[in-house]
């Protein structure tokens, strides 16, 4: 599956904002959670990592901050739950752990 996972069905007349996800510019609507902002444009928060015991693909599960399936990271390394964090203009998000921080 590619393309949007979530379908907007109401309250779509909102201001558009720009965020950056994994280095790519992405537009979101004001009031979107990060999970909605990302999954209204693509199918996954994280794709499968490939290894048999690696990360499973993820797109969130409970949307109420309980299951912890939807972790994403600010580029400075702060971890947040995508389902309970609102997208804000200029936010820079990574959907995998920003291990580039270790290299520096």
């Amino acid at each position: 599956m590619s393309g949007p996972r979530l379908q907007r069905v109401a309250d779509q007349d909102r201001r558009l904002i720009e965020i950056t996800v994994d280095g790519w510019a992405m537009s979101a609507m004001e009031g979107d959670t990060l999970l909605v902002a990302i999954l209204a444009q693509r199918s996954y928060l994280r794709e499968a990592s490939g290894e048999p015991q690696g990360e499973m693909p993820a797109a969130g599960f409970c949307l109420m901050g309980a299951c912890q399936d939807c972790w994403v990271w600010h580029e400075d390394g702060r971890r947040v739950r995508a389902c309970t964090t609102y997208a804000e203009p200029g936010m820079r998000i990574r959907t995998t752990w920003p291990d580039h921080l270790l290299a520096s």
Partner: protein
Amino acid sequence: MAGSPARILIIGAGPAGLRAAEMLAEAGCSPILIDEAPRVGGQIYRQPPRVPGFTRTASELYGAAADRARDLFVTFDRIRQRIDYRPSSLVYDLIDNRAIVASEGKSEEIAFDAMILATGAMDRIIPAPGWTLPGVYTLGAAQIALKHQGCAIGKRIAFVGGGPLLLLAAHQYAKAGAVPAAIVLPSRFESLAAAGLRLLPMPRELSSGLLWLLDLKRRGVPVLFGHRLVKVKGAESVTGIIAERAGRQRVIACDAVALGYGLRSETQLADLAGIRFVFDAERRQWLPETDPLGRAAGRKDIYLAGDGAGILGADAAEARGRLAAHALMTDLGIAHERYRPKPDKTAVACAERLQAAMRAAFDPPADLVTAIPDETILCRCERILAGELRALAGLLGAREVNRAKSFSRIGMGRCQGRLCGHAAAEILAGKLGISLDSVGRLRGQPPIKPVIVSTVAERKA
């Protein structure tokens, strides 16, 4: 406490917590109301963000419950200046009479003289092969996506499980233009009809349930009674489900699944508080023990209200919030002459009957959990298979869930057993051939949800 007013904490700003706050505010107390969400209402009356462009009315958001939702919000606006409201704040630990609260990346200790826990509920999940595929969401998630964000969880959605909220959510999705691919219920039509008869004295509940069902039928949505979810199909994402009845399988194409077999109480804080738990054989869950007003067993300073103290639904939660506040004020000698508890006690008794009928209608057959195939992922955080737990029950003699957790890591992951704990206990008991209560319950551990280290480190007393 002489001189200074009692410091009263309410955890959770859903219907129970809000009604408790209202009672206390009107008696001149100024409770601290702590809630994880940015706006009040709890999960049931979840509000859209306060942002221009979210224009749906309460009727559009909450349907038949719009009046109740509206009244709660108006009540909150009225008492807002008289209480200490702390949104977006998580109580992640309780130590003696102190709540440890994380908010905006910092944590704080708040001491209390009395506390009302109104922590609510989440979906009861029964794993099936493929349930961890992207596109499978809890039923609660499906509702939150719609209410809070104006989104459907997919284009063609199968609603699988049980409970009145499943029919309501499917109906709301259909109304929003996302007509469900199918409704799959393990319960038989006959059990639903029998429960319907028990609801004859409650015409409002009966007729709304019937309306949802008829509306789905009218829209051509297949409603499959007595069908079990065999598996969710798909390699990297949901492509369909297989449902089965009496050996006959049926494939339903869909790109999303809303999964939930009713609700389970969120009891982690009650556990950390040292409240005594009792096994509720009807709900098949260990629950904090309370008296009829909500006074906790084993803690004189703690009260419970709402679905966190056993599922009775949103209307009863309001009554239970007031009853708990009433008990608290009585115990602390706070005057509040106007309130008469009788109507609320009646409402709770009525909700007990309604819930008993709902359980009879929707509770899945016991072997739906115990017969989960060995290769099914049971714990999605730690990726542990049902078969691994079964093997361990035989090999190491783990006859209790916390021992099984130590051996297998089941329930040790980042959701802390919220999703798998119930199924794990059922499977362990089923494998050992012993009753569910005898395998015990997963103990709550602080922090009850993951908190980043810097938040814990920056704690002010």
